[in-house]
């Protein structure tokens, strides 16, 4: 359930009903739905909010596209992540974890529901996805108490870096979202400054293919189910009344027998000495040489590329005469650096730069991929072996080897007293050491040797001034 405290401080607070009897699903629609009608309306020109309405509706039009989107989202939602703190602050790691585990997604609360709606906006709207950073007060440095999904259709990108987004709530009130209150994401953002970061989403990139495949599937469905006219046949030698009578009688007979779709051939006898003639005019049909399987395969490839997932996620490779095991691995590795991978990186960078404190980091962790873990362990072992050889040969000392281990990420920073090469390598998941003052590294009042000695030294240092103070207040 949603958190009332976070909602109260969120710009989405007006989007929630005051009581359980108003504003329920089906009682009203906020804007015209693009989800009705069997055929595709032309896609409005890039870019308008109407275009995003049509793009959002694509998942209701073509089942394989909907399945591909669902697969991409669920796969990302099931990825693991880790909150680390270089100062080992349990308070900050717990707060960070709670922030994501309690993210708001309308009436739902949690990481998975949040990511479901967030990624749908990212993949299905050119305007992109928006996240509100809910704070305890309106001040920029105020404590972050939650994250909330914002409906992309209600967000307007501005050219003002201080107020990058305007959010329109259910009552039509415009909320100016300051830069510390909102995170905006878009796929393939347009480079022209006049569009303020509006992009070209996966649905936009694949729209023609989605429309084509939807039409093919609709055609095959109607042809199979007998609905809709596919051709016009002109007959000579039989009257219209005779024809209608024959079809109606046969239809009624079949319905009586329980047949609804597959009614078979109608056999009717006519008393006539005239020769029957037939001219057929096709009304709609597939092009010459049309191969439904090939069209589908091409479409799946385009879907996979548009979303940025391996094609076998949409269609299994088995039965295609390829070395599917190896190919799956190769395709999966290739897909790691495309499409949604860019979103993952952007999410990670934004969380570490804007949302989390200086010493706390968010990182993705695909704990289920044992292949990846094994590969990493093997490379780490190679590095460890190399360092051992270098120590044995006298090339480097043990301390230098530890420094190399820390730089490579094989050892934690805490293993060395001082990082001699703090600027040597800094991954996109790390934060520079200079952001964390060494004096502040221990956040809790623990009785470590360092703080005891510091306290004793301070008492000694301040004793003379304290005696002056005593003399002053005692009037001596």
């Amino acid at each position, binding site marked *: 359930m949603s958190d009332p405290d976070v909602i109260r401080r969120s710009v989405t607070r007006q989007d929630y009903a005051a009581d359980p009897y108003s504003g329920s699903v089906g009682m009203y629609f906020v804007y015209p739905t693009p989800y009705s009608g069997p055929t595709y309306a032309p896609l409005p020109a890039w870019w308008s909010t109407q275009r995003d309405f049509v793009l959002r509706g694509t998942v209701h039009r073509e089942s394989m596209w909907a399945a591909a989107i669902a697969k991409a989202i669920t796969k990302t939602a099931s990825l693991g992540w880790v909150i680390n703190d270089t100062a080992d602050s349990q308070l900050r790691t717990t707060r960070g974890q709670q922030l994501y585990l309690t993210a708001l997604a309308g009436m739902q609360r949690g990481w998975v529901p949040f990511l479901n709606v967030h990624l749908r906006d990212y993949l299905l709207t050119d305007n992109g996805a928006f996240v509100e950073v809910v704070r305890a007060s309106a001040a920029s440095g105020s404590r972050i108490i939650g994250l909330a999904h914002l409906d992309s259709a209600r967000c307007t990108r501005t050219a003002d870096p201080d107020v990058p987004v305007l959010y329109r709530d259910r009552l039509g009130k415009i909320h100016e979202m300051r830069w510390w209150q909102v995170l905006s994401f878009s796929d393939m953002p347009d480079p022209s400054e006049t569009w303020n970061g509006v992009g070209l989403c996966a649905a936009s990139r694949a729209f023609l293919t989605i429309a084509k495949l939807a039409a093919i599937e609709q055609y095959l469905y109607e042809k199979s189910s007998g609905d809709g006219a596919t051709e016009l046949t002109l007959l000579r030698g039989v009257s219209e009344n005779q024809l209608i009578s024959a079809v109606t009688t046969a239809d009624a007979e079949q319905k009586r027998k329980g047949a609804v779709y597959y009614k078979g051939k109608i056999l009717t006898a006519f008393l006539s000495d005239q020769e029957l003639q037939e001219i057929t005019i096709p009304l709609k049909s597939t092009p010459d040489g049309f191969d439904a399987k090939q069209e589908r395969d091409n479409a799946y490839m385009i879907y996979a590329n548009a979303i940025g997932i391996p094609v076998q996620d949409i269609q299994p490779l088995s039965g295609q005469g390829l070395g599917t095991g190896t190919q799956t691995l190769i395709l999966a590795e290739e897909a790691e650096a495309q499409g949604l991978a860019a979103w993952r990186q952007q999410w990670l960078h934004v969380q570490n730069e804007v949302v989390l404190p200086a010493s706390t980091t968010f990182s993705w962790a695909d704990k289920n991929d044992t292949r990846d873990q094994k590969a990493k362990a093997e490379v780490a072992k190679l590095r460890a072996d190399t360092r051992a050889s270098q120590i044995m040969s006298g090339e480097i000392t043990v301390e230098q080897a530890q420094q190399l281990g820390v730089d490579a990420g094989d050892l934690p920073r805490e293993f060395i007293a001082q990082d001699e090469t703090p600027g040597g390598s800094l991954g996109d998941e790390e934060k520079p050491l200079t952001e964390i003052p060494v004096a502040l590294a221990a956040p809790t009042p623990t009785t470590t040797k360092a703080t005891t000695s510091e306290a004793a030294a301070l008492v000694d240092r301040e004793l003379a001034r304290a005696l002056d103070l005593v003399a002053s207040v*005692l009037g001596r």
Partner: protein
Amino acid sequence: MSAAMRRLLARCLLEVRKLTAALDDGGMAVDAWRDAFAGVLARYHTAAQLVGQGGGALDARAKAALTRAVQAQLGFLDRWALEIQDNAAYTLGRQARAALYAQGIGASYWRGATRMLPLPAMPRDGTSQCLGNCGCGWEITELEGDGNYDCTWVLGKSENCQTCAQRAADWAPLQIREGRLV
């Protein structure tokens, strides 16, 4: 609490407020502020203990107790400094929080005033619900013999918290005989 201690407390409040204002104005980096604040705490806790014992010098036991008190304060200060660093622009409430540190020197005063007797708690040491705002005190009556005292927790003149009310009931008096709590 003596008049001298009240004067000392006023000075301490002034100093921590000045320091915190400098931080709020951006005239001081967090780590520099933390070091300066730590110095002020050490100085005033030392002075408070000396005022409590009526001047003179600190013996080894007194100094060890003082160091532990300062060390605990530094731990809290470090945590606060981290919070400031995380939310640099959020300045609301800093002055009030700084004042709490100043009020905390009252515990050192009472430690000095009670001559390092093995008492279970001191006013303003943070062990009561009223924390550093405690207005209570110890009344020590020296009895005949060596190390014999009756120690009474005296409630402050204004409103009192539940902890202090209970202490006033339980420790009326608390007996120390031959230097040991009985």
